[in-house]
């Protein structure tokens, strides 16, 4: 999956180049999607600059971001192009890590901790396949990797900074619409193996801020929650229905509540060992 990024300013591009320096170029040299960051008004390029997000697909109500958050605008732009333009895969808003050739998929509302858990597991021997989207192939049932920058928010920034020794972090983006954001570059193993897909072994619904607890999630509840977590379920039509019902019927699902990340890691490891 390749992206072409255009910007009226140099700074966001330089930050992207630094953070994506170790990533391969698109195989055929042709990007799949285009993202454009442009000045909200021409004169704003110099006076109190604000970044608008554009590209192959646009959201008219997307608010402009200050130039200091241009990197966030570029990342949001890339997510937007994927969310609306992707036709080959069923996209699930989820993080994915892999071990022994099998994928652990984590989904949930914003703040549930799926990015944080993916970052921490990625530093403990799991391969990070993606922090934002799980790409489910309707033909094979495989999950494809999409290891973009890990977007850490608020308290998760400190947690990851302490847990990921030697991690390469982007600049701290303070006061964005989602609070403070700092990006973490996936490690070399994740980037080197980004072409390797994996069969999903378990689906987790993590929830941060509660006493440790676990429960099975019924297939029908999983189905409903994943239609909500998918950005292109409706667009894919019957292919999306077939891909999702196959996933729901073959992949066991567990909800886990956790009070802190150490507990969550222990719960995930125990669950994985019991599969």
């Amino acid at each position, binding site marked *: 999956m390749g992206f072409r990024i255009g910007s009226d300013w140099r700074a966001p591009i330089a930050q992207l180049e630094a953070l994506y320096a170790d990533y391969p170029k698109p195989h055929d040299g042709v990007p799949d999607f285009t993202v454009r960051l442009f000045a909200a008004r021409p004169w704003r390029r110099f006076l109190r600059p604000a970044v608008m997000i554009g590209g192959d697909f646009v959201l008219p109500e997307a608010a402009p971001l200050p130039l200091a958050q241009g990197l966030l605008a570029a990342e949001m732009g890339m997510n937007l192009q994927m969310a609306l333009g992707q036709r080959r895969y069923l996209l699930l808003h989820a993080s994915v890590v892999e071990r022994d050739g099998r994928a652990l998929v984590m989904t949930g509302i914003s703040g549930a901790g799926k990015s944080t858990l993916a970052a921490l597991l990625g530093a403990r021997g799991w391969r990070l396949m993606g922090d934002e989207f799980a790409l489910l192939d309707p033909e094979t049932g495989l999950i494809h990797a999409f290891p973009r920058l890990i977007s850490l928010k608020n308290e998760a920034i400190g947690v990851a900074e302490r847990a990921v020794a030697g991690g390469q972090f982007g600049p701290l983006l303070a006061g964005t619409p989602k609070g403070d954001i700092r990006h973490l570059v996936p490690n070399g193993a994740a980037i080197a193996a980004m072409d390797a897909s994996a069969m999903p072994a378990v689906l987790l619904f993590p929830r941060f801020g509660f006493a440790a607890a676990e429960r099975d999630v019924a297939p029908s509840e999983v189905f409903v929650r994943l239609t909500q977590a998918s950005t292109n379920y409706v667009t894919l039509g*019957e292919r999306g*229905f077939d891909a999702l019902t196959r996933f729901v019927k073959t992949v066991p699902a567990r909800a886990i509540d956790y009070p802190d990340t150490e507990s969550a890691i222990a719960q995930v490891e125990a669950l994985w060992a019991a599969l």
Partner: protein
Amino acid sequence: MARAESLRIAHLDSFIAVYHRSSGITHLITAPAPEILATLGEAGMSLAALGERLAQDYELGDLDESALAARLDELVAAGLVSIA
């Protein structure tokens, strides 16, 4: 009346997911809707015949025909059953 054509059906648990190809809408249905759709089939039958078949297949005894008619109205409103 008959089951709408071009339905794709996946059994999940007590709920059944139904994809309606004509509208692109996904429905999640539970008893007795799946049994009604399965019994009606795409060939279809009258309300009385449907009640008779359901009572026989599921050992319902005296079937409340007005309740069955109400469930059918819901399925017709959802587009999953067509009135011939």
